[in-house]
């Protein structure tokens, strides 16, 4: 029985990887890393969310943002103002996420230079959904990048002008998927 050098090296590497994984899991390094990472992520998300809630409850923002009071409670904003942090509930998280997503795609809601763009985005929305369904296996990575960026930008940016400017990359990705969906739809129906 002969074993090739390549096969022997592969076996050594596999044993080494198993050893490293065993060490990381048994020594608590992985658990410690997980706790630190989750703490950091949750703190950041919490900060962004409370910032967003506070922005929505200022007088100016309520005139400009879509769904200004949807799913929010004034108690949360007051709690933020009084520095008493409250646990973020899942329905609230979902509402804020969709609010942010709609804000980044369909702003501005008032008449200005960017109005044609928001009308175009509104018209592209069904094709965007169709594009996701049609090409999901191809574009799931782009979709994840789009969702993460839109969540981060829409939650953090408090002004409409900044939101439009910072959201340009999200808009490009949205139009990419939208145009793919539209092209697929007209090709299918012709």
């Amino acid at each position: 029985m002969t074993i090739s050098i390549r096969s022997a090296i592969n076996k050594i590497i596999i044993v080494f990887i198993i050893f490293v994984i065993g060490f990381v899991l048994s020594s608590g390094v992985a658990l410690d890393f997980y706790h630190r990472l989750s703490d950091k992520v949750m703190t950041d998300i919490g900060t962004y969310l409370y910032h967003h809630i506070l922005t929505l409850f200022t007088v100016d923002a309520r005139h400009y943002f879509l769904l200004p009071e949807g799913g929010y409670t004034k108690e949360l904003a007051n709690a933020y103002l009084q520095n008493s942090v409250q646990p973020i509930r899942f329905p609230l998280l979902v509402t804020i996420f969709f609010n942010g997503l709609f804000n980044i795609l369909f702003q501005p809601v008032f008449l200005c230079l960017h109005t044609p763009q928001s009308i175009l985005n509104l018209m592209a929305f069904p094709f965007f959904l169709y594009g996701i369904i049609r090409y999901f296996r191809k574009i799931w990575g782009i979709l994840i990048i789009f969702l993460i960026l839109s969540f981060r930008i829409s939650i953090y940016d408090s002004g409409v002008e900044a939101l439009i400017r910072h959201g340009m990359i999200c808009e490009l990705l949205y139009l990419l998927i939208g145009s793919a969906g539209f092209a697929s739809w007209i090709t299918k129906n012709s």
Partner: protein
Amino acid sequence: MILACGYDVFVSITDKDFLVPDSKAYSIRGRCVSLLLQWYDDKECKIAGLFPNNKVDREIFNDTLVRELRYTLPAGDNETNVFSYIIAFLYSVLSYNTIWPRIFNIVLSICSVYFIFKVAKRQFGDTAANLFLLVALFLPTQFGYSITLSRDFLRVFIVSSTIWVIYG
């Protein structure tokens, strides 16, 4: 490009950048970094007449130079710092004129759209790619903000080039 030149002239005459009001701060910050990279100090700036004549500009310049930068080059991975260095590089190599960052932003904007266009062409075919190109090049945000000194195009370029590397 013509629009950028026109807008640059408009801003220099009226002293108002209504598209991106914080453009001036970026420009002056870039100018400071450019001067610091060329080993200027406060006295030399005054002697060489490099302080802006306008009172507001001079205050921003002083603020940036003395309080924020403290006569040292900005460090860290902050996006503003990176953009300041890029503006400083353009000012140092070409000349102190705000048209260079504007042209730089236009180039970044076109490159970003082109990268996404390549992704669309590879993944979804010619029809979708051409449709995307037609829409994206004339988007008011892409078209309008690319003539300003906005640092957002740097982010757009990095994300679109990353997507192009993965999917293009």
